[in-house]
């Protein structure tokens, strides 16, 4: 089974990364580094407010990968399991556009 994930190397360089997914009628903001809460400062729109930005689900990761986002990799689940078991990066990883 093909699974998509955010490249850990990308997250080492960018501790917070937000983008939009355009696979539905309304653009959806996602946090590539994982679900988080963002506080919008007070402004003309009203008082400060906290908003939760979700992490992308697998379908959204797949969309980002197919759109060519450099942070998304896809990995065969067996390889991922190998990595969990051994701690070593195995073959089968592929970056967008490769």
């Amino acid at each position, binding site marked *: 089974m093909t699974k998509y994930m955010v490249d850990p190397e990308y997250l080492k*360089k960018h501790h*917070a*990364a*937000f*983008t*939009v997914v355009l696979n539905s009628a309304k653009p959806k903001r996602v946090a590539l580094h994982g679900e988080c809460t963002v506080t919008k400062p007070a402004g003309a729109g009203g008082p400060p407010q906290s908003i939760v*930005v979700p992490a992308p689900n697998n379908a959204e990761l797949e969309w980002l990968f197919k*759109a060519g*986002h*450099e942070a998304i990799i896809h990995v065969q689940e067996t390889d991922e399991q190998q990595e969990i078991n051994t701690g070593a990066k195995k073959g089968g990883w592929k970056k967008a556009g490769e």
Partner: protein
Amino acid sequence: MACTLVALDTSTCVNANGGAEYAYVTDITNITSITVTTGQISAFTMSSTDLWTKLVPNKNQTARYDQTGNRPNEFSTKIDYACEGFMYFAGNSNALKLVADPLAACCRLVVIWVLNTGALVVQGIEIDAGATGGFTGSKEGDCRCTPNMLSDTSANEARLELTFNSRNRVTSPYTTLTPAAIEAL
């Protein structure tokens, strides 16, 4: 550089209304990476949310974004593009000062101009697959904003004028993102 030319036939009608309608501005350090699809920016990834500031100028046919090619002389192989955007806001008040001063303070801006043709063109960035994040700032001159806060005379209109200047090696990239997608970032 290889010269692979692209044909152009203007026998079909196109939307050629001049000028710009409005723009989104951010500091270049807010952008962590871009995604490029067939030469256009198809996505921005940002370091936080709500980092694009929308500027809607007066609709008086003055807003524009121009890229003028320059060679040191007509035989030179060097070329760059002087990029200049302009917006006009009627009034003269502290509210306009609060817009102008932070723009003037930013050393490396990125501006997405929503043109009256419907195209969205990005000032202050050049696509560079070899660079971190897939982009650099304008290669010959960073994008900066110079505000003019004018009372003018009683015969005229008080106004804030914003001029955005940068200098590129190639013409500015376009983005396929819609305004709704930019506002969702």
